[in-house]
């Protein structure tokens, strides 16, 4: 391209990944060819809130699980807890434990999926490795076939537990107000115990692998720490009474960019702390901390942008409730220079720590004698009114909120989906990556990787279950001139090959 040329252009990266449709990034360069503005767009809306209206509340756990087929269990559980509140019933101990056991199996499985299939390849295989190898096959090649089998097998077994307890692994039917639909038989318990043990070993194994392959590689650690992937924002996550990470229950805790507790509130109070902002260029709504007001896509303690998911949860909590995970937790912060960690890519590591915790928790519950108790339902007696349910989805805090008439028919439903909490920060990460990496209108494969990694670290809901299978996520960059005509196209295909046209 001649020097004198006006370098004002538009770059379209479409699709990057998918949240209720594909994600789409529009990058606009100024005349000097550096990034002026980058839009991260979500191009579809479903309107569950609307068509929840008129449905019986008890159907919501099954209807809302269809918001996401990757984390249906998260929606199912948040919804079920909302129903407990709606009917003001407390599940019997066994039911509560079955729910958390079910949920722990889900988190273990879902995190494993991401570590090995999605995010994993970036690190286990390595960001610089030929893209052709940067997929689960590459992972297997690197760690060995039997390990590969182990990963897939582990996932299968965990899904078997979920099917046994919840009827279906995708879109389960477990949750009812005040309990669960089905009890666990002693023989099922034995099976679950067995798998839970394996899961814990699997968790430790994963942590070792991660240490070996990632943390002992300074390159990776530098990459994780690099400024391009760093945002100083607030963090949100659910904790138990001891402020330890909990996926199933507890108050929501928010810490400042400095790591101090900013607020700690019960789910029912979420409207006092969380609000959503609408932009005309995306169907997704951007959640922010209500008391601080919407300050745009900015960082720092003045901004109201916050972050959820593994990175945020570890920052928010003061530790893990299980021994092995607690160890890993300390190691994590020690290695990354204390709390809070602001590096987006640290999500991967945090996820491994959480995987271990979830597996340990699964084991605890599987061994609990009460888990086979047949007393699993508290029948509602009071007229339903309003209920809020919150869980920590693998991808962050998830809130369901229902209002019904006296017959329990939904009048109003509101949901704050994990990824919405992160939407603002994702947009920022994308723009920051773009700004940091694109200059003089040069668009290289590096950009694509980096942008992709920045994005994928969040494992956005519909975290693109098969993202990297096979091949790393392909990207397209179209270079337009200021008239909008396509000037050049740069593509990295699913097989990693790069083409220019």
């Amino acid at each position, binding site marked *: 391209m001649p020097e004198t040329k006006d370098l004002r252009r538009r770059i379209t990266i479409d699709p990057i990944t998918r949240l209720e449709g594909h994600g789409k990034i529009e990058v606009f360069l100024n005349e000097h060819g550096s990034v002026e503005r980058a839009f991260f767009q979500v191009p579809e809306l479903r309107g569950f809130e609307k068509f929840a209206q008129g449905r019986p509340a008890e159907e919501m756990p099954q209807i809302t699980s269809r918001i996401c087929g990757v984390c249906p269990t998260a929606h199912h559980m948040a919804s079920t807890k909302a129903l407990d509140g709606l009917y003001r019933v407390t599940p019997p101990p066994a039911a509560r434990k079955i729910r958390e056991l079910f949920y722990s199996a889900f988190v273990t499985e879902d995190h494993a999926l991401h570590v090995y299939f999605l995010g994993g390849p970036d690190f286990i295989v390595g960001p610089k490795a030929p893209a052709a190898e940067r997929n689960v096959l590459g992972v297997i090649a690197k760690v060995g076939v039997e390990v590969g089998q182990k990963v897939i097998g582990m*996932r299968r077994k965990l899904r078997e537990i979920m099917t046994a307890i919840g009827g279906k692994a995708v879109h389960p039917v477990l949750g009812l107000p005040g309990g669960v639909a089905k009890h666990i038989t002693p023989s099922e318990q034995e099976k679950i115990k067995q798998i839970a043990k394996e899961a814990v070993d699997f968790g430790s194994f994963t942590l070792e692998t991660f240490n070996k392959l990632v943390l002992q590689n300074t390159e990776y650690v530098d990459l994780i720490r690099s400024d391009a992937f760093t945002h100083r924002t607030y963090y949100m996550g659910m904790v138990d009474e001891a402020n330890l990470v909990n996926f199933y229950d507890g108050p929501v805790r928010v810490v400042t960019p400095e790591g101090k507790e900013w607020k700690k509130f019960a789910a029912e109070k979420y409207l006092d702390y969380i609000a959503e902002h609408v932009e005309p260029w995306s169907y997704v709504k951007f959640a922010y901390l209500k008391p601080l007001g919407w300050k745009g896509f900015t960082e720092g303690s003045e901004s109201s942008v916050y972050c959820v998911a593994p990175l945020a949860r570890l920052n928010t909590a003061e530790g893990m409730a299980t021994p092995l995970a607690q160890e890993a937790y300390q190691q994590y912060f020690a290695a990354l220079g204390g709390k809070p960690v602001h590096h987006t890519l640290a999500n991967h590591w945090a996820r491994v720590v959480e995987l271990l915790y979830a597996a340990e928790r699964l084991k605890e519950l599987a061994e609990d004698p009460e888990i086979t108790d047949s007393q699993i339902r508290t029948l509602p007696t009071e007229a339903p009114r309003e209920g809020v349910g919150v869980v920590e989805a693998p991808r962050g805090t998830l809130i369901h909120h229902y209002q019904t008439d006296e017959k329990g028919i939904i009048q109003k439903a509101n949901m704050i989906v994990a990824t919405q909490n992160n939407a603002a920060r994702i947009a920022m990460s994308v723009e920051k990556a773009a700004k940091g990496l694109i200059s003089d209108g040069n668009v290289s494969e590096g950009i694509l990787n980096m942008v992709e990694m920045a994005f994928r670290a969040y494992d956005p809901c519909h975290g693109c279950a098969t993202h990297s299978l096979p091949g790393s996520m392909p990207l397209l960059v179209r270079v337009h001139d200021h008239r909008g005509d396509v000037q050049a196209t740069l593509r990295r295909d699913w097989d990693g090959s790069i083409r220019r046209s």
Partner: protein
Amino acid sequence: MTEPAAVPKNPKPKVAFYWCASCGGCEETVLDLDERVLDVVVAVNIVFWPVALDFKRHHVEALPDGSVLAAFVNGAVRTTEQQEMAHLLRKKAKVLVALGSCAQLGGIPGLANLSSREGILQSSYCESPSTVNPEKVFPQTLYKENGQSVSLPGLFETVRSLDQVVDVDYYLPGCPPTPKLLWDAVHVLLGSELPPKGTVLAPDRALCEECPRKDTRPEKLTLKEFKRPQDVLIDEETCMLAQGVVCLGPATRSGCEALCPQGNMPCTGCFGPTSRVRDYGAKALSAISSIIDSNDPEEIEKIVQTVPDPVGTFYRYSLPSSLLRRRKLAPAAKL
């Protein structure tokens, strides 16, 4: 799978995946093939899969028509983009498969047809209690900001099933389909002779056939009341209907091996109707209301009222593919 698609050593059958308005659960089913996933990856050449690879539209356009052996499309059709992609894939694929309830029947996203697009935008961007939107900003299909313009796909007023947009060859039912059905389907499609066009790749009997509770339904079952699941301790062996719980098994195609009843919850009908039924909800409706035990109109009315949400119950997954397809729009919203 690890060599460039451009220069395949031995050409494998090309397969494409696409998702419209769906949740990703169908993709999870692909993963739930577990070890078999690798076999699939080895057996076919996946040329389009937005979740995994980005051949953009024009790459697919570049493919010769009919050069793709099979395109699996899941999700209902909600946006202009989805419609365009559906047409494109139809053109390129020998065989177009509607994967899952949403593509086959409209699915849960199809419940949006109970309200207008306007209503949905309102509730999302204005009425939601957590949304702060004083200027009533709505997402725009075309948005301009100091000379820069970004676009979003337009939303249709009405959600449609795939075959209301393009010609569909086969259907794989379920929300989501079971890995077993998917696996069998892949085999059928890679096999030598294909089933007749329009076939739903699942058994053609109703679910009771394979329900472990089948024998516990009395021959002459009539009911004075339907019970909601939260109000009754559901027995783990007995027929749901015999317990007064609305179960749509009698109207629903089998093939899932009665997963929900095995989870001790009633069938909600995600597998849709058998090949002999045009409107799933209508049949689900008669399955339930014809067991009402009364001849007195008032009592019947009372019993009928114990089903709190007929449309949401009988058309949970099939509203767009139903004969009525959507709630009648207020004249204002009419075309």
